[in-house]
Each structure stands twice: as structure tokens, then as C-alpha cells.
């Protein structure tokens, strides 16, 4: 029921490594980590979701606001290594159409 957020920030790209669960309790902290990174023009924010074993609409909300922020500032958001359960929520909601999601799932069962 926790979420660990590790950020490795470089000049043009930040990689956010998430471990745990994204829900109403942990989403606000994730949002306050991601948003400032998307506010840098030309910056790529890559979120590694390999170790996210639970996510609900609060997580979708965080990525929607991050996406909006990238549109405003000209940065880029990319989600990678999603577990099949998590990627399913993006598909059901149609958000996989507008968010850059790397569908090559390592160790997934899809």
C-alpha cells in the first residue's frame, strides 16, 4: 500500500522508477513529483511502471494532468514496462490513444 518514487534526472530526460501501488493515497505525491518535470520545455519524462502492481483512476488522473502539462510546455511523457493489469486500464478508458505507452512488456503475460 505504499509507492516508492525514485527519480534520476538528466539534462534532457528524467526517468521515474515507481514501485508499489498508485491509489488515492499515493497519487498526490506522484503528481507533485511528475508535474514539475513536465514543465521543462523539451524534457522527456519516462515513467518506468514495471513494479507498479496496482493502479486505479487516481493514477490515470495523474498521467492526464502530466500529459496536459507536456502539451503546454512542449515536453514529452512516456510510460514504459506496464504490467498487463495496469495497461488494461489505459485501454478500457481509451487513454492509450493519446499517451505514449511502450507496450513491450517485460515478463508480462500478454
Amino acid at each position, binding site marked *: *500500500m505504499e509507492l516508492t518514487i525514485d527519480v534520476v534526472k538528466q539534462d534532457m530526460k528524467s526517468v521515474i522508477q515507481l514501485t508499489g*501501488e498508485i*491509489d*488515492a*493515497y499515493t497519487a498526490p505525491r506522484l503528481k507533485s513529483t511528475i508535474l514539475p518535470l513536465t514543465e521543462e520545455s523539451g524534457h522527456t519524462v519516462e515513467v518506468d511502471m514495471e513494479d507498479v502492481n*496496482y493502479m*486505479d*483512476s*487516481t493514477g*490515470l*488522473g*495523474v498521467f*492526464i*494532468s502530466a*500529459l*496536459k502539462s507536456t*502539451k503546454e510546455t512542449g515536453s514529452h511523457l512516456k510510460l514504459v514496462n506496464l504490467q498487463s*493489469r495496469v495497461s488494461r*486500464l489505459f485501454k*478500457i*478508458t*481509451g*487513454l492509450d*490513444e*493519446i499517451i505514449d505507452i511502450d507496450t513491450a512488456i517485460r515478463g508480462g503475460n500478454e
Partner: protein
Amino acid sequence: MEKFDFIEMRIPAKAEYVGVVRLSISGIASRMGFNYEDIEDLKVAISEAITNAVDHAYREGDDGEITVGFGVYENRLEVMVADHGGSFNLQEIKGGIGPYTRSEPVENLREGGFGLFLINALMDKVEINNNYGVIVLMTKYLYETEVGLDDDQISTTQ
């Protein structure tokens, strides 16, 4: 009357308890024989309902309680999430829920807009009652029992 077991929990209307209820439903559903996929669906659906109730309590400046009930039936799990807060505009909540479509500009996407949509997508039946606070009643069926009768399937349940 149909026989069932009933489990009830009362939690503070705070986000930190959503995960506790998720663990509970996971335990109840796996005890009933739901498969992994269905348990994950149930976890998301109940979290969405509780998150709505927590947000609602927060907006009302009310640090109330949420009551969660689990009706364990032979062929299904009924989950009730009740928020005893004040009145609530159901039409507003129901209006505009649905998946994203390409014609919609990204700027119009609401960050909190997918909760009820996901509950509807993941559960078999959803009812919302708004007479006193908000009560979400959702049902998921255990289809495995029916699959067991199918000739094409080898049943492992006895």
C-alpha cells in the same frame, strides 16, 4: 430467502484506508474462488467507490465514516459502499462518464472523470442510490461454476 454471509467494515473517510479495504476484498474474493483477473477488477472497482466517497467527504469538509458491506452469495459477491455525507448531484456525476474518444481535445479531459466509468466497466451490475448520502451497490458473478458444467472445460472444482 437466498442464503448469504455478510461482512461489514467501517472506515474513516480518508484516502489512507482505501488500501486496507482493497486487501479485505482480495481476501474475501479469493476465499470465494474468484480468479486473479476478477479479484483485480474487484480491487479497482471498490477503490473507485471509496475514493469517490472520500473526495465527497473532503469537499463537504466532513471527516465522516464510510461503511463497506460485502454480501457473499453462492454465485456472486455484492459490494456496498455507503457514504453518509450530505446530498450529492448524481446527474452531474453520471453526466459525461465514458472512455476517451479521439474527437475530444486533451484539454477537456477531466482528471477525476474515470472512476464511475471503471466501476461500470469492471463489475457486472452497478446501482447508485442517492436518497440518503450515496450508496453504491455493485455485483460481480462467479462464472467459474457455470464454466465447470461446460463439456469443453475440465472442471477442477469438486
